[in-house]
Every structure is written in C-alpha cells, then in structure tokens.
C-alpha cells in the first residue's frame, strides 16, 4: 500500500482529484478535440515512473471526433483491463509541439502496492538507486 496522502500512484494531470466521472472525462475529451488533438488510450500493469510505453489500446484516434465514441472506447478498455492502469493521452501534431499535451489516468487497480526503493552502496557514500514496482514481481498480465 502506498504511503502518500492518497495512497495511490500520482502520475497524470488529475491523480490528486477524486476519480473522474464519465461526464468529467467527456469534458476533457472535448477540450482536446476542440484543439485538434488526437486521443489515445493506453494501459499497463507496470506503472514504473520511467515506463514510457504503456500498451496502446489501438492507435490514437486521429479521425474520431465524437466524444461519446471516444468515451465508449475508454469504457471498452476498462472492461477488457479492469485491474490495469489506463491513461488517456492527447497528441498535438502542431509544429513546435508534436508531443502529448494531456495525460490523465482513468482506471487503476483497487489496491496499489507501489514501489520499493533499492539502494546499492558505492564509493564515497554514493548510492545507486533503483525503483522497482512490487507488482512486477509477477509476470505480465498476472499482476494486481
């Protein structure tokens, strides 16, 4: 169990708020669509802070402009991976950005065991740190 104030992983834009409702998620989808950003859904059972490449639940939806359709995709992903972390990312293709502009978690496991900090003592009091997810002691797709 994580010991931070919300006992939860705090990646993403809104992890310090109560879980977003579908109405709230729809408003965020609209914000991205109004700016021409494409929405992608990604899931993982390895939420290490440096795990950049969560699995894609399909490609970013460049051509889907209907917020209800995008919400349905999110909910389908939640049904398929109910105990995984799921995040919604908005991709901006504008020159000078060409990078994600939004990223927020919309699904997480009921219990979040968090991470162990491993220390390797080295010369001159230096320590090499490694962060390991407790969940990843089990193989992929058998975690949580």
């Amino acid at each position, binding site marked *: 169990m*994580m*010991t*931070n*104030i919300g006992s939860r*992983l*705090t*990646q993403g*834009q*809104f*992890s*310090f*708020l*109560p879980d977003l409702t579908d109405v*709230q998620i729809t*408003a*965020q989808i*609209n*914000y991205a669509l109004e700016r021409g950003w494409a929405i992608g859904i990604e899931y993982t059972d390895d*939420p*290490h*802070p*440096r795990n*950049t490449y969560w699995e894609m639940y399909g490609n970013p939806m460049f051509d889907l402009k209907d917020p209800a359709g995008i919400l349905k995709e999110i909910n389908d992903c939640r049904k398929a991976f109910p105990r995984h972390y799921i995040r919604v*990312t*908005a991709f901006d293709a504008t*020159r*000078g*950005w*060409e*990078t*994600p*502009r*939004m*990223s*927020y978690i919309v699904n997480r496991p009921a219990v979040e065991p*968090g*991470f*162990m*900090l491993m220390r390797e003592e080295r010369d001159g*009091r*230096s*320590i*090499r*740190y490694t*962060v390991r997810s407790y969940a990843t002691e089990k193989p992929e797709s058998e975690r949580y």
Partner: protein
Amino acid sequence: MSNVRPISSDSPAAATTKAATAKRYKAGVLRYVEMGYWQPDYVPLQTDLVVVFRITPQAGVDPEEAAAAVAGESSTATWTVVWTDRLTACELYRAKAFKVEPVPNTGPGTKTEQQYFTWIAYDLDLFEEGSIANLTASIIGNVFGFKAIKALRLEDMRVPVAYLKTFQGPATGIVVERERLDKFGRPLLGATTKPKLGLSGRNYGRVVYEALKGGLDFVKDDENINSQPFMGWRDRYLYCMEAVNRASAATGEVKGHYLNVTAGTMEDMYERAEFARELGSVIIMIDLVVGYTAIQSMAKWARKNDMILHLHRAGNSTYSRQKNHGMNFRVICKWMRMAGVDHIHAGTVVGKLEGDPLMIKGFYDTLRDSRTVANLEHGLFFDQDWASLRKVMPVASGGIHAGQMHQLIHYLGEDVVLQFGGGTIGHPMGIQAGATANRVALEAMILARNEGRDYLREGPQILRDAAKWCSPLRAAIDTWGEVSFNYESTDTADFVPTVTASA
C-alpha cells in the same frame, strides 16, 4: 549594403562625393550625426540586428545626435575622427540610427523628463557567431556611461534568424522536458527550500523529501546555496538525491531537485555538475551572476549530458527594474533563450516581486513562442522568428500561494513552473500537506479550465469546493487566502494610457 549606390568616377556627383569624403575624414571632432551614424532613410536588412534604446539626452543634445552617439559608441566611433576608418569598409561596420520617437508620457507636462526611443541597425558581421559575450560587449559594452546621454535603457532587440542559427538554444526545452518527466497539460509545481541559510545537509534533504512526496514535481536550491560552512555541496547533493528517489518511489512519479552548481570557477561548476549527473539528478541549476559565457558553457554541458538547466535570475533587478536606465528583462529573456537555459525566473504578476501583467506576458511570450509578434502594449517592439530554437520554461516564484491558483493559470498559462516556497513549507499542517494543497488546487483549476468554466471569476469557489474534501487546501486558504501584494509596478508599458495594477 543596400543603401550605397555606385557612382561613376568622372561625374559631377563623384566630385561632390570626393569633397564630402575629404571633409568627413579631416582630423578633428564631428557631431555623430555628421559621421554617418544617423541615417533616417536606412531600411534595415533581414540580416541586421535591430535594437531599440530609450535615451534621456543631456540638456542641449538633440535626440538625433543622442541616437547617433549611441549608434556610434556601440559600433565603430570614438570621440574624434580617425583616418584608419578609411582602411575598412567602414560604412558596413557603422551602426545606423534610423528612427527617433518621443516616449509617450514623458517630457514637459509629465512627471518624467523627456525620453526618446531610437531604433538602431547593426550589420551581422559586427558579431561573432554563437557568443552572447561578443554580442553584449558590442551593444551594451561602452555606451551606457557615455556623457552625452543622461540615461540609457536597452528596450528590445530583433535578432536575425541567421544569427540565431549560430546558437544552440535551450539544452532541453519545454517539449523534451515534459516528455522526460512524463508530465503534461498542467503547470509544474516547485518550491525553494527554506530557510535559505543554515540547514545541514541532513535537515535540508528532509524538506526536499516532504515537499516532493506531498505532490510537488521539483524542489530547488536557493540562489545563494552553493557550498558554505553550514552545508557543503557534496553533502547536499547526496541527501537531496536520497530525498528525490524516496519520493519517486512513494508516488510513482519522476521527481527532481535543482542542484545549484554555481561556484567560483568553471572547473568547480563542472565538477559539481558531473557529480549531480552521477547521482542521477534530472536537473541542475546556475545563477545569472555566473556570467553569459559560463551560462553558455553549462548549456552545452547540459545538452551533452541530458540534463535540464535551471537559471535563477540572481542580480537582474540591479539593471532591469528602473525604466530610465539599464536594460529590459525581455532582452535578458532573449539572450538566455539563445544562451541555452531551460528554465528562467520571469515573474509571477501576483507575487511579492516586481511584475506588471502586460510586461510579464511579453517575457513569457518571448520565452515560449515559436514566433513572437510585435505588441507594444506588452513591450515587444519587433516580430521575432525564433528559428526553431527550443522553448524556455518560465518559472514563477516569490510570494505566491494556492489561493491565487486561478490568477496564476490565467496570467501565466500551463507551460510554467509555479514555485510555492513559503506556501508549501509554511503550511500549518506540515510540508507534505502544503505540497498537497498546492497540487490539489492546481489540478482542480486545470480540470475546471478544461471544462470551459470561467475559472478566473469562479476560482475562489472552485478552490472552496475542493477544500471541502481536502483539508490541507482548506488550511492553506484559511492561512493565506487574503494575502496579496498590491504595489504599483515600476517597469510598465509605455503604450497604454494608464498604469496597470497588479491583480
């Protein structure tokens, strides 16, 4: 040179020109306007560097002569005619003042003595590639102490794309910084460890750990935290990295602490930066007082070592605050984007330090836009194409707290680091709670903004609603809700009818 026309050698015009040239180079003293530094018909080239100065001439010096003097003394002129000019293509090396205008709301009938804006063009060949030191030695090297002018201020500078392309620019930039940190769509949150002086390494790291675990992304060394008797730099780095890594494991987020590598010599700075890198820090910092060349060196080092480079603008107000003399901070912003820093303190609007909202908008645009458009109300005299130099993340720090979140996001946008030092560490329920209050206020406000709510007007209500379920935020609002710093700014726009008050 576009304005020099060839004249055939046997024409009457040529005879006149010969006579004029002989007169021009006769030993003695000429007025600067007669030496070629005042050229009202000159049309700047795309490759010229163009500068706007604010001049307060001495009594009896007309504005064109003052402008020509500034052009002269910042390029080829000295106080008397020298024949050695004729060994050179001196027309090219002469800076050309081509426009003078009275500054609005100065002169007779106002509280301020008469000032003038002058526009001066410098040929590209006056400057060494990739050297802020050379650029500044030319433009501000000599002329600010010149007797014929009472006061002088460098207001803005258009840097030609050709010259910009000789600079590395920000080592990391906003886009890459966000990708490395995996943080998108909201301002980043930071705090400066307090008290500034006296904490041991062990005690210092405690503050860092609590603030990061509570929800901040960054904690920061203060500008004068280097390596003093109470805390050596190696101790600080070791304890801070323990704090950063502990907090990262406790939250699952990438966290950082700006390790200040400022030191007495470049060799010491490199040694400290190397140690920060070995320990796995994502970010280091330097102070503006290390100097332009040291900043460029550290920017190159940072690019080479995948390090974010934070710059604290220590000392800038000694020359940027007063309107009549020195240089505007927007010019520092331009030079620092060229020099290659990733973060720079650029004002808060609502906090304890100097900052008119319109002026600060101009600074932020200068740091973040791919192309800034001339906007006199924001103090931007020129269109500036940034030639794909990366974007600098502005940092807002000094006397800000969670209760101002709606104003901060309104004025500063989302690509900014909001630093709540006292507003985190001084929280009545402790440092972690202080950090949580700031993060909850931030996320609640971004959520509301994205939902299309009028968050600037509804901001206090949005915060009160979040405070119902977040007791740290409630305590923050109860403690600081009414604190504000309403003083008139000194560095304000010249092109608006009234002074804009800080909100």
